[in-house]
C-alpha cells in the first residue's frame, strides 16, 4: 500500500515537473526581466516547425533555438510583439502560430465546432420533445 502511494506521489511530481520543462538555455535569457517575460510569452505562442506539436519555448530543436534568439534580438531592437509575429508569419505562414488567427480562410476551423454543437443541441431538443410526447401517450 505504501509503495502504491509512493508511486502515485512520484507520478504526480513528474507530471508537475513536466509542466515547467522549458528548453531555454541560460545564455539565451535576457538581463531585462520584462523583456525576457515578453520573449517567453511570444515563444509560447510560436510552433516549433521541426517538432510541430511543441512551442519553441519547449523545443530543443536547433531551429527553435535560432527562433528564440531571433525573438530576443528583435525585442532588444525595440520591435513590438505584432511586428515580431508578422516577421515570423511572413516567412513561415500562419502555421507557425499555435493559435490560428480568425481569418476568412480559418472561418471553418473556428465556426464548424459551434455549428456542430448547435446541430447537436437541436437534435437533442427535438428528441426530448418526441420522448415526452411518447410518455404522455403511454
Amino acid at each position, binding site marked *: 500500500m505504501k509503495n502504491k502511494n509512493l508511486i502515485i506521489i512520484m507520478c504526480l511530481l513528474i507530471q508537475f515537473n513536466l509542466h515547467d520543462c522549458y528548453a531555454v538555455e541560460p545564455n539565451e535569457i535576457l538581463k531585462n526581466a520584462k523583456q525576457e517575460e515578453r520573449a517567453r510569452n511570444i515563444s509560447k505562442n510560436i510552433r516549433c*516547425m*521541426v517538432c*510541430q506539436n511543441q512551442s519553441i519555448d519547449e523545443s530543443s530543436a*536547433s*531551429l527553435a533555438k*535560432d*527562433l528564440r534568439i*531571433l525573438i530576443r534580438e528583435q525585442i532588444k531592437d525595440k520591435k513590438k510583439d505584432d511586428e515580431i509575429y508578422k516577421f515570423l*508569419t*511572413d*516567412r*513561415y*505562414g500562419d*502555421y507557425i502560430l499555435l493559435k490560428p488567427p480568425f481569418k476568412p480562410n480559418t472561418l471553418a476551423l473556428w465556426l464548424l465546432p459551434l455549428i*456542430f454543437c448547435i*446541430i447537436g443541441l437541436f*437534435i437533442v431538443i*427535438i428528441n426530448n420533445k418526441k420522448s415526452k410526447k411518447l410518455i404522455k401517450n403511454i
Partner: protein
Amino acid sequence: MKKQFFKIPIIFFTFILSIFLYLLIIDRNPSEIPSNLLNKNVPKFVTKSLFNSKKFFSEEEFGNETTIVNFFATWCKPCRDEHVYIKGFAKEKKVRVIGINYKDDPEKAIQWLKEFGNPYSNVAIDKNGKIAIDWGVYGIPETFLISSNAIIQYRHVGPITKKIYKKINLIIEKTD
C-alpha cells in the same frame, strides 16, 4: 420532413469521412508545410561566399535566369543522398544551381564538394541559420526553384528523389 431532418447528420458524417478517405488516398506528405514565400520575391541577403573572398549578394545572383537554390550541409546525410540529383540539374544546364551552406564548417564543406562533386555555380555561407529563417527553411535539405525574374516558384522539403527530380524538371520547362 422530420425524417429528412435526421438524415443531415448522416450526410455530414459521410461527407467528412469521404474527405478523410480522400486525404489518405492522395499522394501527400502531411508533415510538409507549404512555403509562405511561393510567388514572392527572393529574400535579399549579403553573406560570405564559400569559394572566393568576394561577398555573395543575392540581388546579383538571382533575377537573370531560372535558378535552383539548395540548402545543404556536410553533416546532413539526406543532402549526400540527393547530391546526385543536384549534380543532374547542373549537368543538364537548363538552370543555374546555387548552394547555401547551412550551419557548417566552410573547410569541411569545400572538402565535401571536392569529394562528391560541385554542382554549384556559387555557394553562400549561412553560418548562424539566419538566411534559412528568411527563406522559411525548417529542415534541410530544402530546394527552391527561382524564376528568371527572381520569384520563388516551388519549394521542396527533404531530399530530392527521382520522382521529385522529374517534377522539378517539368516545372522548369513550364517556367521557361
